[in-house]
């Protein structure tokens, strides 16, 4: 992990907003997740581009849980944990996927146009830090994604404001 991100994560500031959501593994909840994220960072006055990047990366991660790990089984649920300050947006996704090997996620060839395979690419492009941790014993996965909000040293979103 980048030393700067490690420091930010270990020294989360006092004005932290900490939010945990337990959500049903249904694609219907994706818009709810985006709304809650927007509500929880509104006071930070992020640019539209940056806010959308954060919503986008989080949605892609949750979509993968619903689609690949849970195969659209709506009786499953997963957990989101969001920590934000004016310096950092960190979101963790906790879910179950025995046998999941993150190293096997293919890297897409953008020259070859396909109907899928862009979700993780988008996540990695937007987020400053992406880390899947799997526990072979329990089959639990923890996906950590971090975006640095501090505009001076990050690119401040993928698009112009």
């Amino acid at each position, binding site marked *: 992990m980048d030393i700067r991100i490690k420091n930010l994560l270990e020294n989360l500031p006092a004005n932290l907003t900490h939010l945990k959501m337990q959500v049903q593994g249904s*694609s*219907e909840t*994706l*818009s709810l997740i*985006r709304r809650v994220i927007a509500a929880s960072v509104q006071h930070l006055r992020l640019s*539209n*581009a940056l806010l*959308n*990047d954060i*919503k*986008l990366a989080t*949605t*892609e991660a949750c*979509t993968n849980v*619903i*689609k690949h790990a849970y195969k659209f089984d709506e009786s499953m649920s997963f957990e989101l944990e969001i920590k934000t300050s004016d310096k950092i947006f960190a979101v963790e996704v906790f879910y179950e996927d025995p046998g999941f090997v993150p190293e096997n996620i293919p890297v897409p060839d*953008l020259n070859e*146009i*396909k*109907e*899928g395979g*862009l*979700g993780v*690419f*988008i996540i990695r*492009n*937007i987020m400053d830090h992406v880390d899947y941790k799997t526990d072979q014993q329990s089959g639990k996965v923890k996906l950590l994604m971090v975006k640095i909000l501090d505009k001076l040293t990050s690119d401040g979103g*993928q*698009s*112009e404001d």
Partner: protein
Amino acid sequence: MKIDRLRDESKKLKVFSIEGELDVHHVKNLKSEILEELEPAGWIYELNMDKVTYLDSSGLGMLVYLKKEISKHEGRLVISNLHEPVRNVFSLTKLDSFFEIT
């Protein structure tokens, strides 16, 4: 998600004005609704995205699929009125040159 339809027989043009968020939940509907409207040959299918406020890889995947299907029907897919941040998802994935965007 809402779709408004406009059909111009003389120009062989169909315009689908889409309203809402294009994530995996809403994509299925849209896909089947547009596939139902495919005509034999030579038609233009315009997706007016003026009121699309969100699009992700699931939405992109559907658009890639639609473009391929439309090509099989010797038609053209045109995407119009993209707003930032939706346009951003196209450029991030380099799909802005694959699609005909106006």
